[in-house]
């Protein structure tokens, strides 16, 4: 446990709608309770409806900070990835979600912030400042990021190339990155489906890697993204 700090919440001074969209958002008790209840509910749903099982949990670092990167083909991915973490870590886990999908209106922003504990990534207007803020928060804080480096859901179930954004977060740091492969989410709820089907979902974690020696520049980000893409792909091939 960290020493107590005499420091206002990162999102103090913002109006609620801005707090939900803030990359500095820190959950208080009501949000933590809502998020815990949501995780318990979705864990029950995934187990009952999708026979959800998790492999390789032993690869997860004992404490934050760390990043989990996974393939992305369904809205069920973020839920499965969050629930796949041990309960004591779920509270610190922030799915990085598309701002233009989950944070566009006040209602969806409130839902994404309070229940999913998500942080927004604006795909069309994501500046280096936002990435820098996320990187600082990761290094300084207690955060776990759940990230889908493909940038969008696969329309055919196959994995697309990872974008270099993941590199901007962890290149040149000791923050471990855990590869993960979600198997069955596409079959259960592909992008065009309105409701999920009761097919099985498996989440497989792989061995974490840190990238202290990868340079924090465009070439380094690209290199790092390729390494992680191979790791996730390998997990998928062995699934």
């Amino acid at each position, binding site marked *: 446990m960290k020493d107590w700090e005499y420091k*206002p*919440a990162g999102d103090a001074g913002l109006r609620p709608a801005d707090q939900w969209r803030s990359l500095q958002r820190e959950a208080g*008790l009501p949000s933590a309770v809502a998020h815990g209840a949501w995780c318990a509910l979705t864990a029950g749903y995934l187990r009952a409806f999708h026979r959800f099982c998790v492999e390789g949990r032993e690869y997860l670092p004992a404490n934050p900070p760390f990043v989990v990167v996974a393939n992305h083909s369904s809205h069920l991915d973020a839920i499965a990835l969050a629930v796949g973490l041990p309960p004591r870590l779920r509270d610190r886990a922030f799915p990085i979600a598309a701002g233009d999908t989950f944070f566009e209106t006040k209602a969806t922003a409130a839902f994404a912030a309070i229940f999913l504990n998500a942080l927004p990534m604006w795909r069309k207007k994501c500046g280096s400042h936002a990435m820098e803020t996320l990187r600082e928060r990761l290094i300084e804080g207690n955060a776990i990021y759940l990230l889908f480096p493909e940038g969008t859901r696969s329309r055919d179930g196959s994995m697309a190339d990872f974008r270099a954004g993941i590199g901007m977060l962890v290149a040149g740091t000791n923050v471990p990155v855990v590869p993960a492969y979600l198997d069955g989410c596409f079959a259960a709820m592909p992008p065009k489906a309105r409701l999920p089907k009761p097919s099985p979902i498996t989440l497989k974690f792989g061995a974490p890697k840190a990238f202290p020696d990868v340079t924090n520049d465009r070439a380094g980000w690209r290199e790092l993204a390729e390494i992680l893409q191979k790791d996730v792909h390998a997990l998928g091939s062995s699934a």
Partner: protein
Amino acid sequence: MSAFTNPATAGITVFLAALLAITPVVFAILQRMGRLTPTLRKELYARYFSWLVIVPLMVVPVLLGRFWTIAAFGLLSLFAYREFARVTGFFRNRLLSATVVLGILCMFAAIADHWYGFFAALPSLFISLLVITAVMQDQPKGYLQRVALAIFGFALFGICLGHMAYFANDANGRPILLLILLCVELNDVLAFCCGKFFGRRKLAPATSPGKTWGGALGALVLTTTIFAFIGQFVFAGTLLAAPIHLLTMGALLSFTGQLGDLVISSVKRDLGIKDMGTTIPGHGGILDRFDSLLFVGPALFHYIGYFVGIGLDQPVRLFF
């Protein structure tokens, strides 16, 4: 029992409604006289629109009865504590913060149950619990700071605001609460206005640079007078209708009201922030608006309780 059994309840309600109705007229007159700059006009209207929401939120629960009054003060306590916890960073200590919230909920459960014994026991029980809970975290570094913040939060928002809510258990609770709420808010306005006219010597320049002795004393005299005038109807037929009691209560209200303001100013200066939050446009946070209520509750509760008692003729232990 009708909400307006005591004529003072109707009188204060009508007075507040009239005040809200007249305010835009005053603004319009000031505008015509060229006394309002565009910035000041915008700020005044932002504050006025907030009052249009705040006043019904304060008055309607009181008029609706004891349950709604206690619920409204309970919510006020929880939101005030939330603001305090977030600006100090104390909210990050989930265990202690949850214990404070539990303490506040227990205080309001005791009030709703009209169980004074439990209400009186809770401060010592929860202060002990907070001290012990902090030990259980096995983190001696910063122990005193954590415990002090937890007790500070529980004392101000659980115990002090709880005393305000307890008035709802009295048969005369409605007019007493309306009188207190009206005078506390007027006290703020009067301190500001008197400060503008007579304020020269600063009251506490490091804590709150805008406050002056002139403002404080002017508010003390005027608020005491207003309290005593309306109070004679509220406390009619009781020992407290005597002028000495009315003047003492009015002075207590004004004095403790201004102290509440100074205490929250002190917290803000210590943290280096301007406002405690952004909940109320034109005012800041909930605590920026309701800070003056903090110590008025305990002061008047025990004064009234000592001389005539509170809720003595009402049923007790309603649920537990």
